């Protein structure tokens, strides 16, 4: 919340200064016919002020508790629900969104390297992704922003964009940001009839957002719009993933280390490594439910505890997760690998990461090191 409030405040200031914005007049959302996504983002009319990510009425912003690492990109998330439709509320799964739902996610970096920022938001927008629930499944579309930040055009084949920014430690970072092709979207979101949404689930959404009148629980807010098919239980009775890196300032104190790490691997690994994920056949399960299993070898292979890799491996290590020893754990080797010098195939997740998530690696390492040591089997 500490970051999002100023962003909204800035956006509001922008609105006051520039009214409805020069390029996109205030208008209600205009969904494209199925299978015929517009050539430009503006045609959808999701935003009152797209360069500053100020949504139209009826386009609801949200955040998640545990975020997927994408080379330190900042993200802006929104949901558009077609008029009169309801979302199927699920206590512990991804919500059941009706056909016509559009989930919108913009990827951006601080615009702080050369010259004054181009927008009041102070971010350089790279791409805005749409995930649209069409009648035969969820369909991904991506719009790439131009350098001037005036327009985003549909791009199906992906692109590589050089990006530099000054990070929170004052270091200038430079990366080759990868906009995925439409086909690559399916690698995480599944293929064919199994295409699916990943983030919007109760554990991720049960947190506050400032919709203009101070912090408000997101799920309560969505319920107040009449969007849910049933009344959810009170906020404190819902599954809530902790924020992985929130060590000190959560109400009631920080969540336990193991829960924060489990939330991290849920957000960053479980889209494939879960009983319904793309590589479920490898039986390395890192989803929130599976990671709740006590991490001992006797409890099986769900966490990768003392599990030999199949085709994978990393750095010559023997086991996916060695309790008490992060350095001996393939899990840590994989999420910290950067190619070169590591083989590109070692890098996990395989998409959306070209550099190391140092904080994430430190968290997972601390978690594994904190587990009761195991020799992994023995006779």
């Amino acid at each position, binding site marked *: 919340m500490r970051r999002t409030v100023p962003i909204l405040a800035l956006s509001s200031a922008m609105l006051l200064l520039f009214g409805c914005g020069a390029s996109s007049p205030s208008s209600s959302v205009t969904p494209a016919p199925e299978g015929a996504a517009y050539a430009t983002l503006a045609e959808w009319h999701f935003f009152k002020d797209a360069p500053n990510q100020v949504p139209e009425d009826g386009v609801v912003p949200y955040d998640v508790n545990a975020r997927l690492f994408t080379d330190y990109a900042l993200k802006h998330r929104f949901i558009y629900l077609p008029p009169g439709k309801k979302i199927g509320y699920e206590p512990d799964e991804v919500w059941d969104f009706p056909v016509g739902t559009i989930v919108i996610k913009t990827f951006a970096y601080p615009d702080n390297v050369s010259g004054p920022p181009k927008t009041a938001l102070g971010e350089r927008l790279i791409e805005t992704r749409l995930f649209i629930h069409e009648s035969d499944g969820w369909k991904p579309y991506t719009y790439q922003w131009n350098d001037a930040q005036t327009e985003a055009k549909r791009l199906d*084949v992906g692109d590589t964009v050089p990006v530099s920014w000054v990070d929170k430690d004052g270091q200038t970072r430079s990366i080759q940001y990868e906009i995925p*092709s439409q086909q*690559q979207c399916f*690698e995480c979101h599944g*293929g*064919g009839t199994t295409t699916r949404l990943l983030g919007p689930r109760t554990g991720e959404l049960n947190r506050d957002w400032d919709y203009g009148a101070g912090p408000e629980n997101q799920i309560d807010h969505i319920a107040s719009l009449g969007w849910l098919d049933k009344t959810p239980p009170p906020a404190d009775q819902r599954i809530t993933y902790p924020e992985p890196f929130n060590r000190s300032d959560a109400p009631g104190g920080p969540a336990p280390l193991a829960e924060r790490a489990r939330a991290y691997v849920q957000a960053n690994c479980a889209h494939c490594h879960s009983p319904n994920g793309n590589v479920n*056949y490898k039986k390395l399960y890192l989803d929130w439910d599976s990671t709740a299993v006590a991490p001992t070898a006797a409890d099986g292979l769900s966490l990768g505890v003392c599990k030999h890799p*199949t085709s994978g491996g990393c750095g010559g*290590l023997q086991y996916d997760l060695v309790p008490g020893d992060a350095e001996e754990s393939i899990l840590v080797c994989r999420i910290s690998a950067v190619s070169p010098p590591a083989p590109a195939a070692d890098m996990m997740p395989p998409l959306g990461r070209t550099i190391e998530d140092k904080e994430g690696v430190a968290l997972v390492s601390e978690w594994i090191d904190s587990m009761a040591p195991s020799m992994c*089997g023995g006779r």
Partner: protein
Amino acid sequence: MTKRALFWTATFCLLVGAFGVAGCSDSNSGEKPDGGMNGGCDITATDTMSLEQAFADVKSNQTICIEPGTYTPSRQLGVASATGVTVMGTDPDREKVVLDFDGVSGKGIFITANDFTLKNVWIKNTSDNGVEAKNQKSHFDNIKVSWDRGPDTMNGRYGIYPTHCSETIVENSEVTDASDAGLYVGQCTKAIIRNNKVHTNVAGIEVENSVDADVYGNEVFDNAGGILALLESGLDLTKNENVLFRDNNVHDNNHVNFAHAGSTVSNVPSGTGIMVLGSNKVEIRGNTVKNNNTAGVLVVGANVFGLLDILTGSAPPPQTDIDPFSRNVYIHGNTWMDNGTSPDFLIKQLAAPNTTTADVLWGGILPYAPNADSDIGYGDLLTGAYADSSRFDPNDDQMFCLGDPASGSRTYMDLRIPCLNPQDILPTAPPPVTPVGIDCTTRIVTTPEPARTCATPPTVPEQTFDQSNG
């Protein structure tokens, strides 16, 4: 070509034909000679940009044609939602249609949509698998997968990688330099792997945790291990069953093992022609097996790869999800020549005091599996206990039926694991113990062998399904 595409092509050509526009000749608008039902080109790629756009645009039952040339995609290609797609080079010489993925992270082509066909292309230099298909009814025909740097641990792990698949055919293709298996079929039901040339990989052809696989007519050479039937713990499909290796030419598989340390295939002894590990109903017939330095055929249990873990005292957890024994292995009618002349270090220690091994090498399994079967379990390395020294019976259909060879002077050897001095493998291992009930002095039996009397030889059916869209 679809009717609509034909219509527009014809209309376009009619309208502009008088002005001599290129691209309206018969060769571009007509049926491709070997394209089958959908052999026409709905989309034609002529450069990298149009190739990437083609994968983005392709609809069900369409064909992407790729003109000769070198294409350098900047990211992984894939077909996820459109079914019945064919991707084919327009020149039957696959080496003229090159997709070079050098420097691109991820796989080359990743297919999750059903009824997919890929033909006449050369895929190079992928950082991960060359082609991966997780679907039903894939057909790979006349493709090549390789890495320009030659055999190297940094290469992608698998060349052609159908997984969680059914009714998959891989034929007339060539795979070389993969750092795991060149041509892999894993967790699949019904697969045909035929007439391929697979060489200079860690494992040539690997059938893992699959049912009904028919591997024939392949030339497999210069790999660390040639053709493998493997059962792995911890996967969805918990058996490897009905695997037929017939009429293959398996020779000179003596390449150094350059797999990633820790991976399953890093344990495959260099010099292995054919390896059966923890599988059930494997028939090996009609093959020519020649010049494989460790063994022509090596039959072991699925936990033999845990040997080093036992020696270091860090044995992996019991494999409760699989039956680790190799059962119903039927080897007959093969031609043998010059195998086992210079075994890999580990096998050499197991075979001691012999310095050579044999055409057929039988290793039993280690005994710590929870469902250890005293009939087949082969003894305890650390206690020297041996379940039953009489149990190696090449005529026992339920474990190992050694039928007549087609020709050649075949030899076979019983690897008696309790005879091993653990410290020969690992200096810090526990000291040797005296084996109980086992003769460690005569391990090798040479021809002439006993008469073949397998009561009910465990034959494996050939696969006869075919693809409709190829």
